[in-house]
């Protein structure tokens, strides 16, 4: 299918900035088109399309972002990325044989914690999801979920024991999900974890996890491995959801109140006309 304008004219992660070496170009496929990312002799990073033309470029959150269209808006902002004392952790891309929209939706869900991330992010019998608040913030055109709470045996690498964790979720773009969670070393502050997804095709994507944390004790490898372990548990689920394309027809899959964020996300995608990775009617 042809890529809709909404999907085409947006920003997507194509590389990790500090891994680009001069003289060693990388390639990344974005919605079927092969892009080349290179660091030139003057240290400038460029993204080149298959036809040789230069693509739009933004470098932010440790990643190189580009587009196969012409984004009319700048990349979303995460102010916490500029805060003193935070560690930035890029976890690298993980390939997932699933729709990018399914990947984002899974990242917004907490009801699966006791079953998929057992004894880490959740555990029976603490399975209840209390009501939380979801809104589509029209001024910024983003989906936000707030006042989310869940009991977690080991909420983060820095956590020593189980605790009730507060969460917020934010979807600033169809293929990006950001979560904010209670920071164990700094009560009152939020740890930030982003999932930036590049669709390779409608049923295949690379997911880049990124974190901005307060954690002075853990080493970088442990932080990356913790996040990768969590994501690989999710991948086992994502690659076995049928249909692969995210159904936007509300009759196809049955939500409950715990799924309010996902319901809002699907409605928001439909309203925006984001159909890449989705199916409108049962196929």
């Amino acid at each position: 299918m042809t890529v809709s304008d909404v999907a085409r004219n947006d920003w997507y992660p194509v590389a990790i900035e500090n891994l680009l070496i001069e003289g060693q170009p990388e390639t990344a496929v974005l919605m079927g088109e092969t892009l080349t990312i290179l660091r030139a002799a003057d240290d400038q990073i460029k993204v080149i399309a298959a036809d040789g033309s230069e693509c739009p470029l933004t470098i932010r959150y440790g990643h190189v972002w580009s587009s196969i269209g012409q984004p009319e808006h700048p990349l979303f902002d995460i102010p916490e990325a500029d805060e003193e004392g935070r560690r930035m952790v890029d976890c690298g891309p993980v390939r997932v044989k699933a729709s990018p929209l399914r990947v984002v939706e899974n990242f917004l869900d907490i009801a699966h914690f006791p079953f998929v991330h057992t004894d880490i992010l959740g555990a029976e019998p603490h399975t209840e999801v209390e009501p939380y608040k979801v809104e589509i913030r029209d001024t910024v055109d983003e989906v936000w979920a707030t006042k989310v709470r869940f009991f977690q045996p080991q909420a983060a690498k820095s956590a020593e024991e189980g605790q009730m964790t507060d969460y917020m979720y934010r979807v600033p773009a169809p293929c990006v999900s950001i979560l904010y969670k209670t920071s164990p070393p700094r009560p009152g502050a939020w740890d930030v974890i982003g999932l930036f997804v590049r669709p390779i095709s409608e049923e295949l994507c690379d997911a880049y996890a990124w974190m901005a944390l307060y954690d002075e004790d853990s080493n970088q490898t442990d932080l990356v491995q913790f996040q990768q372990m969590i994501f690989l548990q999710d991948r086992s689920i994502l690659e076995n959801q049928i249909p692969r394309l995210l159904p936007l027809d509300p009759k196809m899959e049955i939500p409950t109140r715990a799924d309010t964020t996902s319901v809002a996300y699907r409605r928001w995608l439909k309203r925006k006309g984001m159909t890449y990775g989705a199916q409108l009617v049962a196929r």
Partner: protein
Amino acid sequence: MNAEHAEKHEVSAGWVPVALSADLPDGGVMRAQIDAELPLDLVVWRSRSGQVSAFDNRCPHRGMRLSFGFVRGERLSCIYHGWQYGQDGGCRHIPAHPDMTPPTSIGANTYLCQEHDGVVWISQHADSRPDLPESGGQGLRSLSVNRDEADLRKLLAETCLPVSGGSEIAPADASIIAETQTSLVLEVASNAASLQLMIHFQKVTPGKTMLHIQTSPDLPVDLLISLSRWAERFRWSAENMGTMVKSWDASAREMHP
């Protein structure tokens, strides 16, 4: 209808074997694919009390394959959010809302699932003939072969079976002594102690068939092992050679050069 289409239509109207009973223990969960009028992808599971059930392999919540789920008591739980289903397919419990009784409209689509004499059968039609196909003896093994059922039946008509085990394997010609829509019985010719194999066919996808094999009861273990090796050799021949190789040694050499 041409003959091939007629045969396919007939198979789907009745029972299809999906497992040997011994391969689905209490609390077991497995996936079964059936190439029928509409291809089926099913989850087949056995409750702790021993009851078998079969559903569409898809949780109605977020589409997760139920064949990755787990059994607790008399219910199947989806691995994603732990939704629990009773044997009638109805959703009984949603862990995110533990005090809520799930609406009766939430459920997995079910299929008739019955077992008898060592084989688990599925039917997609509510009005299937109530009599299950004949089965019996002891379960030997199930085997997946990348070949159409029709070809396999022809190849089985020409095969040799071991009639004793250990170092004294003596292959003997086998013949089909009974054949139905779902199964056939192979018997070794001219032997005082008659050896039979009952083979039940499951069309998995076009070009792929699962054989569920039972054999005569009370056979010595080394003969059972020889029969299992025969099944592997048969599969190798069916997948790699156009026609059956009757020579025991030749096919063994081809399989392990």
